[in-house]
């Protein structure tokens, strides 16, 4: 049987066998599993929504509405965290459009970024971003790709102290600047860190993920599918027989489950422009999570293919 996203949608979430070897007890299927943000104890669903490329649709009404449909499906599935950046073209405006259309401002956990080499422009850029979103204030602001991070962290810390921001963080992607990121994690009072981690890009397992856990810093994972490349690469190849024990019936589910099952991960943010994909991604957060031994087995199996 060819295992692809359409098949998953038709089969729906499968029942989990209690005590199935290597899998932890499952949670309720309807609501996504959550992890807590260490600095406050607030719970956050394990899967969020990215907006790089997918929500950069300009003023095209048809595409704005289809992006809004994706967000509506995301919220209906229990999703909360949406991540964006001024770098992502019109994605912030698209998010704002959808939030107004479906009155989702109360449900969203808004995560955006400051992305300017000029410290002086940071506050203005943040305010412009906030007005695009249409939220009273952001839940989380992150320094994008560590650009001028020292100056911007000062700004964000001041905003947090003044009560106009709840969480602060930093981001990188594609495995860049991990050395510098490690120094920041070890020395700066941040709540979140965001970087790339997936079944092929596993460098973060060596140091960043354990360090974040040790320091009590929440972890957001970007590129869990390498922008869809991993799903394309694996689709058509057979899933291991033991994956079915936890109801994993697609490679997208397999790949995302691997990421979110790492104990240090708080939330993964795959981006998509399709309603069926966002539902499938959220379903991965409603299923069983593999333990460490099974995670290794998953990584080894993927590496062989």
């Amino acid at each position: 049987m060819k295992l692809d996203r359409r098949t998953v949608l038709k089969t729906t979430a499968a029942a989990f066998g209690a005590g199935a070897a290597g899998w932890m007890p499952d949670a309720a299927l309807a609501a996504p599993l959550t992890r807590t943000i260490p600095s406050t104890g607030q719970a956050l669903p394990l899967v969020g929504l990215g907006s790089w490329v997918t929500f950069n649709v300009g003023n095209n009404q048809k595409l704005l509405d289809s992006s809004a449909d994706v967000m509506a499906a995301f919220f209906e599935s229990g999703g909360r965290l949406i991540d964006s950046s001024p770098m992502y073209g019109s994605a912030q405006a698209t998010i704002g459009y959808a939030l107004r259309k479906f009155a989702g401002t109360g449900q969203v956990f808004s995560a955006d970024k400051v992305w300017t080499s000029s410290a002086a422009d940071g506050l203005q850029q943040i305010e412009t971003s906030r007005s695009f979103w249409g939220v009273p204030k952001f839940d989380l602001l992150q320094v994008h790709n560590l650009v001028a991070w020292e100056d911007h962290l000062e700004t964000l810390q001041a905003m947090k102290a003044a009560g106009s921001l709840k969480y602060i963080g930093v981001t990188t992607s594609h495995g860049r600047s991990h050395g510098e990121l490690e120094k920041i994690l070890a020395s700066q009072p941040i709540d979140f860190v965001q970087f790339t981690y997936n079944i092929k890009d596993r460098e973060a397992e060596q140091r960043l993920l354990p360090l974040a856990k040790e320091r009590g810093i929440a972890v957001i994972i970007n590129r869990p599918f390498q922008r869809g490349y991993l799903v394309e690469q694996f689709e058509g190849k057979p899933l291991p027989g033991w994956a079915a024990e936890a109801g994993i019936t697609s490679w997208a589910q397999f790949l995302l489950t691997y990421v979110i099952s790492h104990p240090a991960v708080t939330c993964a943010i795959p981006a998509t422009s399709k309603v069926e994909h966002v539902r499938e991604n959220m379903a991965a957060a409603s299923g069983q999570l593999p333990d460490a031994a099974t995670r290794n087995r998953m990584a080894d199996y993927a590496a062989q293919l």
Partner: protein
Amino acid sequence: MMDLLSYSLDDFLLFSLPAYYGIFEQINTALWPGAHMVSVLVGLLISGALWWPGKWSGPVVYGLLAVVWAWTGWYFLGFEYASINWAATYAVPAFFAQALLFAGAALSGRGLALQENPSHLAVLMFVFVLIAYPVSGVVLGRPWQAAEMFGLSPDTLVAATLAVLLASKGWLSRVAWVVPLVWAALAGLTLWMLGSVEWILLPSFALLCLVWAARSSR
């Protein structure tokens, strides 16, 4: 330095193919039918001035091209394309510079002028671009609502300009090739990264014009 090397071309692509097509759908919907009628009129005027050369041909051809280059830089790049690609604004000065070059040619006729008897083949290539470019995109898979019309798309403008330059002479005509050729390369690269088979169209046409110009100059 290692960080710079880790970037791939994909990292610089901010938008998807549907979003790119959506720009043209947006323009065609918003400006129909007025802009399209003006586009056809401008195309006919340029074609006529090239086919039946006279003392007013140069001012008509280069004057209209100047207007279209300025319009495209301001409207398409500065507003529509910039809504999904903030880097598009960096190309606006180049389009305005091209517009100024053509405006200067229209006013003075120095450095850049039409050949005394422009090749009819060059004129036919110009007309071909006006008709075939919008159709070719649709044939290759884009929605018909996103067809690229002359005057409402930089790619069509660049192709049409290259055809006009084949019928041009003067040292400035060589300068006038630079921006169109650079845009042809960037446009082809963008469409290739977006996964569209249309990527081959403009670079191929530009290469054809370049080869023709090189052979004609011998």
